[in-house]
C-alpha cells in the first residue's frame, strides 16, 4: 500500500530547505560577510611531539596587513579547551610549551585577508626540540614512550561491561561462565584480532567560524558550522566569563556534520578572543588539508573478538578485548565514545558478554564521535566474529544469527550491561530481507558462479543502534552539557507559535546539517494542527531563538526534539480548541483540526481558519473570558529511555583474485526505525549512512607514519566513495514502533553506517573463503585483499 498523505506524518513532502540550496542561495558560515572582517590562519606543528623552545612572531607581525599574531602567552589565561568528559589530557587553546600531535595549532595570525594571514603564518618562526612520539595504540599501552612527556601513563581507563557505571548498575560478571563454557568439549572457540581503522570524517563543508564581539552591547555574535550551537554558546560564555545569554551562536546552513561538528573547538574560542582584542569581526575557515589536524577523527580501535559457542550454533559467550585510540587530547566526548559501543556490544544477540576496552593517548589527532560513534565499531566486531563462527561450524550465517537473537516476546529486553531495549522484532526484520533478496536463490547463484571460477560473496549483518541517549540520569555520566555551563540532560526542546496571520513558527533546539528538520518538524506540527506545511516556518541552530537546545547527534533529533515539538503542538492544539469552541459555540472536545482550520466534529462545513483562530487569540476581547492571550507553547521532552532501532543488511560482491579488486554488485538494507515522519528523508539518511560504511570498508584510512605524520590528510590520499564506486541501494522496511515517545519514532541518522562496513567485509571474505581467507582488516583496498589471498595460499 502506498502512502498518499502529503502533509501529515508518514507523508512524502518535498523539502522546505531545498529551494535556496539548489539555487546557490543557501548561506553557510563562509557565505556570510561582515563589514571590516579579518581572517585568521593558524601556524601548525610539523612534529607530532616536541618541546617548543621559542616562537618568534616579529617578522609576521611586521608584515603589511597583519593585525595580530597570538600565541599561548596571550591565551593561556583562558584555560584549556573545555571538554564534556574531562578524562585525560585537555587541549590548550594554543600549544603551550609542547606540541602533542602533528598539526597542533601553535600560533594564530589575524590579517586583512586569508592570503596575507597565510603568508604571515609562514613567517612565524618556531624553535622545536622533537621528542619521541607514540603513534600506535598497542605501543601506547606499553608506556615506553609517553604521549604527554609529563604524564604517568598513556592509559586513561579501561571500560568493563560488567562494571561500566559502578553504583548505578549492579551487573553480573559473565567472565567466569564464559571461561567455564570454553572447557566444554562440545564447543568451538573462534577468535580474531581485528582493526577498526581510524577515519577522517570529511564533511564536504570544512568547518568555519565567524565571531563579532561588540563591547557596546557586551555581546558576541558567533556563526559556526556546528551541530551543537547551544553547547558552544555555553562554552564561550564560560571561557570568557560571560553569561550565555550574551553569547549568540547561530549555526546557519551546515554542510554536513557526521560528528565532526559535534565538538567545541579551540578555534571557536580563539576567533572570539581575537574579535574581542581587535574590535573587529574575525573569521577562520578550515582548509581541507588542515581539517585532518583541526577537526576530530573517528574510530581507531584494535581488539580481539571471541565467540564461544556450541557446534550447533548456540553462543555461550561473546568477548572483546580492545584498545581505543583517543589521540593526543580529550575533547568533547572522547573517552566516552567506547561506552556508546558498549551500549550495543552484543548486537541483536541474547548472549553472555565480557567486554573490556582500554582508552589510550597517542601523539595523533584527537578522536571523538564520527557517525555511529562507538556503535559501528562494536557492531563490526560482533558481526564479523559471528560470521567466522558460522563458517567454523559450517552453519549458514543467517541461521546462526537467528538462533541467538533476542526474541520478539523478550522485549522490552535487558542487555548484559543493564540497559533496557524498548522494542525489537529481529527475526521478522531479517526474514524480510532474506525474502526480499531470495537468499536461497542468491546462494545458488553464488555456487554456480564459483563453479565458473568467479568469486562472488554474500555478506550479511544485523545491527542494533541506540538513539536519543536517555534517561535523564545519564547527564551525570557525562551525556549532558554540564561542562559547558549548560545544565541539561539530553532532552528535547520545541516551541510552537501560531502567528497572528494563522501561520506557525516552530523553534527547535537542534543543529541539523542536512537532515531536513525544517520539513519533518513542519510535518509533525501540521499533523497536530492542520496548518499546511508551507505555512509553517521552522528555525533551528540559533541560541537566541530556542530557549534551550542540545543539538543534532546520536540520531536523537526526531525522537527527542521531535517529541518535544509534538507535545508543544499538542498544547497549542488544546488551547486552540478552547478558542474554536468559543467561536463556534461548541464543546472543546468536539473540535477537530484539519485542512488549514478547525471544525466541529460531524459538521465539517462549519469551519474557521487558522487566521480567524489567531485573530481571536491575539484579540482577547473576542475570546473566552479568562483565557490568556496569544497562542504558543514550549515543551521540553526528556525521554524515559533511549530508542533502539535495528536492521539487517546484505551485500553481494565480486572479487578479482588476480588484483584483489572488489566490486559491489548489490546492496540491500532493511532497516527498522519505528514510525517514519517522512520516508523520503529516512531513505536518504540510510543511503548516506551506507556510503560512509562502504567508505570505511573499502577505501578510507587515516594513516600515520611511525613519527606521527599523517600520510593521508588530503583527498588525494584519503579516497572517498564516488558515485561510480557505489551501486544503487535497494531498501526495504519493517516497522516496530517505540513507546518511548508519543510519535513512535526511533531515529535513523547512523543506522546505515552502523550496518554497512562489516556487511561489505563479510561479503568479501565470503567471496574469497574458498581460497582460504578468513579475515581481512579494513579498508579492503585491492592490495589488502590480494595480500590476504597470497597469505592464505601460502
Amino acid at each position: 500500500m502506498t502512502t498518499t498523505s502529503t502533509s501529515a506524518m508518514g507523508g512524502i513532502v518535498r523539502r522546505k530547505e531545498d529551494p535556496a540550496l539548489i539555487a546557490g542561495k543557501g548561506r553557510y558560515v563562509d557565505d556570510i560577510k561582515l563589514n571590516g572582517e579579518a581572517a585568521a590562519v593558524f601556524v601548525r606543528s610539523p612534529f607530532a611531539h616536541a618541546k617548543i623552545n621559542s616562537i618568534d612572531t616579529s617578522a609576521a607581525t611586521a608584515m603589511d596587513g597583519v593585525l595580530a599574531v597570538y600565541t599561548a602567552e596571550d591565551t593561556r589565561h583562558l584555560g584549556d579547551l573545555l571538554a564534556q568528559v574531562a578524562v585525560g589530557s585537555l587541549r590548550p587553546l594554543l600549544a603551550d610549551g609542547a606540541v602533542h600531535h602533528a598539526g597542533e595549532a601553535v600560533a594564530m595570525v589575524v590579517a586583512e585577508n586569508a592570503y596575507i594571514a597565510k603568508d604571515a603564518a609562514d613567517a612565524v618562526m618556531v624553535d622545536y626540540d622533537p621528542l619521541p612520539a607514540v603513534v600506535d595504540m598497542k605501543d601506547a599501552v606499553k608506556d615506553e614512550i609517553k604521549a604527554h612527556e609529563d604524564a604517568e601513563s598513556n592509559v586513561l581507563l579501561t571500560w568493563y561491561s560488567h562494571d561500566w557505571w559502578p553504583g548505578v548498575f549492579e551487573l553480573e560478571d559473565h567472565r567466569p561462565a564464559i571461561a567455564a563454557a570454553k572447557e566444554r568439549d562440545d564447543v568451538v572457540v573462534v577468535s580474531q584480532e581485528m582493526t577498526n581503522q581510524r577515519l577522517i570524517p570529511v564533511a564536504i563543508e570544512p568547518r568555519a567560524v565567524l565571531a563579532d564581539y561588540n563591547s557596546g552591547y557586551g555581546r558576541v555574535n558567533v556563526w559556526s558550522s556546528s551541530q551543537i550551537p547551544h553547547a558552544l554558546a555555553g562554552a564561550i560564555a564560560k571561557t570568557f566569563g560571560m553569561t550565555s545569554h550574551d553569547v549568540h551562536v547561530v549555526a546557519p546552513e551546515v554542510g554536513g556534520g557526521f560528528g565532526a561538528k559535534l565538538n567545541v573547538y579551540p578555534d571557536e574560542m580563539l576567533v572570539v578572543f581575537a574579535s574581542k582584542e581587535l574590535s573587529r569581526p574575525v573569521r577562520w575557515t578550515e582548509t581541507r588539508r588542515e581539517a585532518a589536524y583541526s577537526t576530530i577523527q573517528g574510530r581507531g580501535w584494535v581488539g580481539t573478538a571471541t565467540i564461544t559457542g556450541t557446534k550447533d550454533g548456540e553462543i555461550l559467550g561473546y568477548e572483546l578485548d580492545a584498545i581505543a585510540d583517543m589521540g593526543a587530547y580529550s575533547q568533547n566526548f572522547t573517552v566516552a565514545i567506547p561506552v556508546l559501543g558498549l551500549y550495543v556490544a552484543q548486537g541483536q544477540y541474547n548472549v553472555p558478554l565480557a567486554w573490556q576496552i582500554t582508552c589510550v593517548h597517542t601523539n595523533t589527532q584527537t578522536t571523538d564521535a564520527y557517525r555511529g560513534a562507538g556503535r559501528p565499531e562494536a557492531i563490526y566486531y560482533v558481526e564479523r566474529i559471528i560470521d567466522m563462527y558460522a563458517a567454523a561450524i559450517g552453519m549458514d550465517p543467517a541461521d546462526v544469527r537467528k538462533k541467538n537473537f533476542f526474541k520478539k516476546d523478550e522485549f522490552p529486553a535487558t542487555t548484559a550491561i543493564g540497559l533496557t531495549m524498548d522494542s525489537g522484532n529481529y527475526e521478522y526484520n531479517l526474514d524480510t530481507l532474506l525474502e526480499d533478496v531470495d537468499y536461497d536463490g542468491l546462494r545458488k547463484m553464488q555456487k554456480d558462479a564459483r563453479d565458473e571460477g568467479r568469486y562472488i560473496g554474500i555478506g550479511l549483518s544485523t545491527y542494533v543502534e541506540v538513539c536519543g541517549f536517555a534517561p535523564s540520569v545519564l547527564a551525570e555520566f557525562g551525556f549532558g552539557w554540564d561542562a559547558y555551563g549548560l545544565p541539561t540532560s539530553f532532552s528535547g526542546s520545541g516551541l510552537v507559535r501560531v502567528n497572528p496571520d494563522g501561520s506557525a513558527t516552530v523553534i527547535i533546539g537542534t543543529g541539523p546539517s542536512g537532515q531536513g528538520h525544517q520539513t519533518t518538524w513542519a510535518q509533525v506540527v501540521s499533523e497536530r494542527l492542520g496548518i499546511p506545511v508551507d505555512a509553517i516556518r521552522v528555525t533551528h541552530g540559533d541560541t537566541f531563538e530556542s530557549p534551550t537546545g542540545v543539538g543534532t547527534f546520536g540520531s536523537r533529533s526526531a525522537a527527542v526534539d521531535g517529541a518535544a515539538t509534538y507535545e508543544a503542538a499538542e498544547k497549542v492544539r488544546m488551547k486552540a480548541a478552547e478558542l474554536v469552541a468559543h467561536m463556534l459555540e461548541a464543546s472543546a472536545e468536539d473540535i477537530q483540526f484539519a485542512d488549514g482550520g478547525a471544525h466541529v466534529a460531524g459538521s465539517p462545513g462549519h469551519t474557521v481558519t487558522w487566521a480567524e483562530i489567531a485573530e481571536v487569540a491575539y484579540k482577547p476581547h473576542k475570546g473566552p473570558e479568562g483565557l490568556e492571550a496569544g497562542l504558543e507553547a514550549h515543551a521540553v521532552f526528556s525521554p524515559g529511555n533511549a530508542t533502539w532501532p535495528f536492521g539487517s543488511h546484505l551485500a553481494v560482491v565480486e572479487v578479482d583474485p588476480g588484483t584483489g579488486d572488489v566490486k559491489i554488485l548489490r546492496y540491500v538494507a532493511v532497516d527498522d526505525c519505528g514510525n517514519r515522519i517522512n520516508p523520503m528523508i529516512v531513505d536518504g539518511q540510510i543511503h548516506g549512512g551506507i556510503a560512509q560504511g562502504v567508505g570505511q570498508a573499502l577505501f578510507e584510512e587515516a594513516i600515520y607514519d611511525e613519527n606521527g605524520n599523517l600520510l593521508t590528510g588530503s583527498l588525494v590520499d584519503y579516497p572517498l566513495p564516488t558515485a561510480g564506486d557505489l551501486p544503487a541501494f535497494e531498501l526495504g522496511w519493517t516497522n516496530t514502533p517505540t513507546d518511548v515517545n508519543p510519535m513512535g519514532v526511533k531515529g535513523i541518522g547512523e543506522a546505515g553506517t552502523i550496518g554497512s562496513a562489516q556487511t561489505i567485509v563479510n561479503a568479501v571474505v565470503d567471496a574469497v573463503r574458498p581460497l582460504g581467507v578468513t579475515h581481512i582488516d579494513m579498508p579492503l583496498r585491492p592490495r589488502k585483499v590480494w595480500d590476504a589471498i597470497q597469505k592464505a595460499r601460502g
Partner: protein
Amino acid sequence: MQVSMTVNGSEVSGDVEPRTLLVHFIRENLRLTGTHVGCETSYCGACTIHVDGTPVKSCTMLAVQANGANITTVEGLADGDNLHPVQEGFWERHGLQCGFCTPGMIMSASALLAENDNPSEDEIRHGIEGNLCRCTGYHNIVRSIEYAAAKMRGEEPAPPDWTQDFEGATA
C-alpha cells in the same frame, strides 16, 4: 591585475592578485557564494562552474586565467523563476541533504545532460565522479539526474523509488 569576464550574463571586472583563485574572485569579489570550496586538491568538485560552456573546478583556476571568459555559476542556471530541470530533479528526488556539494553537483549534471539527455545510470555515475557528496550516497542524486533527463526529453520521469508502507511492515 585587471580582469573582466561575463558571469551569468553580466559583464564584471575586478582588480586581483595573480594568485587569486577564480573561486575566490567569484565568492569574495562578486559575492556569488553558491559556488563552494570543499577541498584544495581539485577532488571534491563543490566549486564546479561552467567556463565557456564546460564544467571546470574553479578552485583550480586562477581568476586571471578566466579573463574574457563566459562563466555560469549555479546562480545563473535557472531561467528566471523557472528552475533548470536538474534543479527541479534534485528537489523532486531528494538529491541533496546538507546542500553543500549541490551547486557543483548540479553544474556537473547539467553539463552532462547538455551533451547527452539520455544517459545510462552508469554514465551518470561516472559523469559525476568529479563531485563528492558525503550525505546522499549518490543514490538520489542519480535518480534526480534521471528525472531531469526525462524532463529534458519531454518524457514523464520514472516514479520515485523510496520505500513505501506495505502490508505487513509491522509484524
